[in-house]
């Protein structure tokens, strides 16, 4: 059994087939006789989605699977399950209840919406005997896929994002690129982990750390970064402004730019490309582990790409497995990194 204990499934947009992907991976892992837990990022008190007015989907759980959801949805379910834990943290929909299904059934999942609570919830599920926990992440919010919270991630993309296939491939590739940012070496990582919020410069020779600003969004003066600086460490949100600021340095290629993890990068695609073009390289403290991309070639308006073309276009630029769970939902095919 490999070391991946928790996997988040995040979507780049609504209707990119995140739920089908979740169902697919539940099926996949269940067939491997893995004791599986499922939970979801909380939905802050709304059981219907306010944008499309569709109901939050029910997820099928099978006998002996462990799931956690809020008190409200736990009370609404219609199958027998055994309560194992009731969390302490109170959300709008009540506390989080973790239970083991005694028979198959359908349930709306809505776990904690705060990442530190989610982390606690995942740990408690693992303690209760789950071998792996699947986390249904929020749409267009990648925070649950932060390596701080889950060990691995699955990214759902599709026609719902844009009807321009070039753009779809470009945007998906950008997220994949971010999720594949390389980690810094162990020694540097240990040194940087002790530094708090803000933008820091670390001298190449002396390893002396100096804080430029308390928060990257406040801005900082690029001229404070000297030629003797080896590392610029950004502990906070990396916006386009931050990258542009760094691009103004003519010795950018000699610098290591380090961020905590890829979910903190909010810079737009073009700015990032310019940054890379100028030989800038982002590294992360905590690397993410992207195990698969799922695609939904159909948009909610009914337009559909050819599934094979889309997959091939993506496979051309992305090295992780790309699957259309509805078309080639072959649950017997192995997934590198998952089993």
């Amino acid at each position, binding site marked *: 059994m490999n070391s991946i204990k928790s996997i988040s499934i995040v979507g780049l947009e609504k209707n990119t087939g995140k739920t089908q992907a979740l169902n697919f991976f539940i099926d996949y892992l269940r067939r491997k006789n893995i004791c599986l837990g499922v939970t979801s990022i909380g939905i802050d008190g709304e059981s219907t989605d306010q944008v499309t007015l569709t109901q939050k989907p029910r997820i099928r759980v099978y006998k002996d699977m462990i799931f956690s959801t809020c*008190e409200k949805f*736990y*009370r609404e379910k*219609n199958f*027998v*399950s*055994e*309560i*194992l834990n*009731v969390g*302490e943290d109170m959300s709008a929909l009540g506390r989080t*209840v973790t*239970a*083991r299904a*005694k*028979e*198959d059934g359908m349930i709306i999942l809505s776990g904690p919406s705060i990442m530190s609570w989610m982390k606690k919830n995942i740990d408690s599920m693992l303690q209760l005997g789950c071998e792996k926990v699947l986390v249904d992440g929020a749409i267009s919010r990648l925070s649950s896929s932060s390596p701080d919270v889950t060990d691995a991630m699955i990214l759902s993309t599709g026609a719902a994002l844009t009807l321009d296939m070039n753009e779809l491939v470009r945007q998906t590739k950008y997220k994949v690129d971010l999720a594949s940012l390389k980690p810094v070496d162990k020694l540097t990582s240990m040194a940087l982990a002790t530094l708090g919020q803000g933008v820091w410069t670390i001298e190449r020779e002396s390893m002396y750390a100096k804080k430029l600003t308390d928060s990257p969004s406040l801005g900082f003066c690029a001229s404070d970064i000297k030629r003797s600086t080896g590392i610029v460490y950004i502990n906070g949100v990396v916006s386009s402004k931050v990258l542009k600021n760094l691009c103004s340095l003519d010795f950018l290629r000699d610098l290591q730019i380090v961020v905590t993890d890829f979910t903190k990068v909010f810079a737009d695609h073009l700015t990032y490309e310019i940054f890379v073009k100028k030989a800038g390289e982002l590294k992360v403290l905590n690397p993410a582990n992207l195990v698969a991309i799922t695609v939904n070639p159909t948009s909610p308006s009914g337009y559909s790409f050819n599934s094979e073309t889309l997959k091939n276009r993506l496979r051309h630029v992305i090295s992780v497995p790309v699957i259309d769970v509805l078309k080639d939902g072959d649950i017997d095919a192995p997934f590198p990194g998952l089993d």
Partner: protein
Amino acid sequence: MPLSRDLIESCGFDYILSLLEVQSPLGRKYIKNLSFMVQQDEIAAEIHKTKAFIRFVSQDHSMQEEFSKIIGHIKDISQTCHKLELKETLDDIQLFEIKIFSMLCSRLEEYIPEYMDFLNLKNLKDVFALLDPANLCMPSFYIYDEYSEELTQVRKRKQQIATAFPVDEQELINTAALENSLENAVRKELSQKLSDYASAMIHNLSMLAYADFSTAKAIFILNFKLCCPEVSEQGIYFEQLFNIELDSILSKNQKKFQPVDIALDRPVTVITGANMSGKTVVLKSLALNQLMFQTGFFLCAKTARITPVESVFLITKDSQSMDEGLSSYAFEILKVNECIKHSQNGEKCLILIDELARTTNPQEGKAIVRSVISILSEHNVYAVITTHYDGVLSKDAKHYRVCGIRKDKIGSSKIKRENITDYIDYSLISEDGWACVPKEALTIARLLDVDNELITRAEMFLTEGQKGGCADGK
């Protein structure tokens, strides 16, 4: 009697309470509703129990750690218990909570030593048995098949229908509905049976809240080396009274708090002293320790002998509230009026007033101070009033003077704003009756390096206006 939030904050009791490391939501709730004991024997009994907890923490340390660990898992299920008392039917989540609670209670019993038998937890083994029909001893719950033979059969049938092909939808719904009503019947019956234990569970909840709080309190007492107070009929005596909050601030600057001795053996005590001489701190410490005494704490002193009072009033510069749209003088005088009303009703009070009537003109101010002293001295109270006014001291009151600036040390080294506190002796000296208030405002101003012209002119005005008054200190 509950304590007022204002009083808790103004004397620094909230800081003390924030240092307590309680383990459960129950303990936190207990701290919020801390009760103020007034009866002597009640306080003496609480001191006795506190000693037991100190023994538990210091001598049976490993046992206490287990005990606290288990308490940390206990949740506040008082809402659920009240539902049971009202004979309401509980749902699975509530039944689960009761099961876990009864399990933890039984486990806790093993870690309560004999000398703490006053905790007296009610046995909830029967509650656990009701919620564990299959005798699995697991910390989980659902409506087990074992609750009813009929339920077992219905569930089996439901499984058969669900797995058959093709599924008979109508039959499946019928069976599921039957299962649902059978489950509800079980929940109802269980809740009926459990309601007999509701009062026992509520009793245990309050005992555990008390135990959580008292364990944290005992650890706190040991950490800060607090003293066990002696409960007395009258008088309030402290030897080496100190202040934890101030001490922790001072220790950051490598300084130490200088403890003071004080005895309140007459209805009114007046404290005089230069500015910066710690008069306010003495008042706050007195209020704080009285609250600690009457909520069952040990005290911040070397020794303490205290009599319980019915209420505590602390009127300081910073306790004033703008909320009521009153001037600082109006606010103060109304507060003083309240104190006097209480003492005229024969209530035994501790009244602490910082620089009474300082915000009005000195002639009337003095008269007010004298009047307050003379009224309070006729009642069964312990009042401490600090003042800068001359001529308010009388035979009605005991007089303490803060030792003040150490003239012997001045000149020996450079005095700066940062180290001026090193040149002040904070101890209280008991004076006989009529002594004058010390005049050190200008000396302190000089030490603080205030503009020389200000000081020389002030001195000039002082000598001009001074005919027959007290010139310096005594």
